């Protein structure tokens, strides 16, 4: 299938989704939203894809909303920005967070506004040394959307989240790691290789178990300890029924490398 705004590749059980509007710093317009969501929806259901990598072409990662898009025309009547959030951004964040397999984000350059928060919604974020994160919303009189106000305090704590969201400063990748906002920083030229390496590793792991881990960690954000302990019991019950668990235990006993199927 041909896409105008993204590049899609499926290889070795990994789905690579690459934003491809480099001249616009990969900012989102309607077409890009539709293309990204159709790919992500298909991968969510496709058990042959066991890890997803989101990355981008050019010098930027994603500048959030394309301000030249007709839906945000400031000269028309006051725009209802909630509409595009309802229709596009919120469903995208849910597609990422509810994807039943790991989602890696390889941040190659500036991730601004919704672009930053789309990255933060991913399970593991690797950034190039020259990449940066900007909660640009406050500079335009807006509020961090796409989960920004939810992810930030959980990732970096309230004090840092307030600073990031109210000041809108550009945070270099290395500082983002120190704050606990992302997982890892690598040299620019290593970003692609490192993200592929990690994806290929994860794609061979017990995918169903990984999906339960992901779900449990998301649930922890609103559960109390008692509820979370019960949820861990439930998930362990489910995981214990999986083929991969059997394979893992057998491989351990037989002192060989397990071959996981993802279910």
């Amino acid at each position, binding site marked *: 299938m041909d896409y105008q705004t993204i590049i899609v590749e499926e290889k070795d059980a990994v789905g690579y989704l690459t934003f491809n509007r480099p001249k616009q710093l990969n900012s989102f317009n309607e077409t890009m939203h539709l293309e990204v969501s159709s790919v992500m929806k298909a991968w969510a259901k496709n058990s042959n894809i066991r890890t997803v990598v989101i990355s981008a072409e050019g010098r930027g990662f994603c500048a959030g909303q394309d301000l030249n898009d007709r839906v945000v025309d400031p000269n028309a009547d006051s725009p209802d920005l909630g509409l595009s959030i309802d229709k596009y951004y919120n469903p995208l964040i849910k597609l990422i967070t509810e994807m039943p397999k790991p989602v890696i984000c390889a941040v190659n350059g500036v991730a601004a506004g919704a672009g930053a928060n789309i990255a933060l919604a991913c399970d593991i974020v690797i950034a190039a040394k020259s990449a940066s994160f900007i909660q640009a919303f406050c500079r335009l009189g807006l509020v961090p959307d796409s989960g920004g106000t939810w992810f930030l305090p959980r990732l970096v704590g309230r004090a840092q989240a307030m600073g990031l969201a109210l000041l809108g400063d550009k945070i270099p990748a290395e500082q983002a790691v120190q704050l606990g906002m992302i997982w890892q920083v690598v040299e620019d030229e290593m970003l692609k290789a490192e993200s592929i390496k990690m994806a290929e590793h994860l794609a061979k792991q017990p995918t169903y178990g990984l999906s339960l881990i992901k779900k449990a960690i998301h649930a922890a954000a609103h559960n109390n300890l008692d509820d979370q302990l019960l949820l861990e019991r*439930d*998930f362990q*019950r*489910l995981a214990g*029924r999986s083929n991969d668990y059997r394979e893992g235990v057998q491989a351990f006993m037989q002192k060989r490398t397990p071959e996981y199927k993802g279910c």
Partner: protein
Amino acid sequence: MQYIKSSSPQIGVILIELNRPEKRNALNNAILKEIAEYLQYLDADILVKVVVITGNTQCFAAGADLNELAQHDVISIQQDQRPLLWKSIDEFSKPLIMAVNGYAFGAGFELALHGDIILTGDNAQFALPEIGLGMLPGAGGTQRLARLVGQQLTMRWAMLGEKISSATALQHGISSQICPTALTVQYAVELATKISKQAPLAIRVIKQSLKSIHEITLSQGLKLERQHFVWLAATQDRKEGINAFLEKRKPEFRGV
């Protein structure tokens, strides 16, 4: 039985599975009749203590059968047997647990509301979509739901047909527990097993006392509760329960 499957996963526990998957378990007259008649049969079986009703993992029951509904005019609907079937489900005297995964829409939602306890899978969705067809819920949807969650939410849900998630259902007391979908039936059966080991006569009057709250005033209800309380004092199981407690052992209830 053509449309329902029955099994006994534990002693004293009957699991009924709605089994019309090609129609998403739509509750036509035939399936409703099977449920009602089977429950009547189970009510009389002294070995049956608790019943669990479930659908499949994708669907509890997606509503009534619209083809049947469409055939009724205002005259023929007066002779409809469905209200009697619903009534006999409502009159089942033993604990009835609903294990709801997936869609419970319209009549499916109303069937779930006939349960004494509802457990939902995390994929469960309730709705009263009748309004979209120019109708209203016709099997207690407006009544039982309003008594559970109040006027505000019931008006919204009945007037808009909005979908209600498992989490929302738990929050408003429609469901008492959310389970991972694959475990809902297992947990419902575990709950049923625990209840099946309680003193049957006490379970019976607990259900009666609780179901009366929508029929009578508080002072009448308190009187009824007291009558049940006094009546239980004449049972062997009550003696056994108290003795076992004092002797620090597990009670053995016999339903006498």
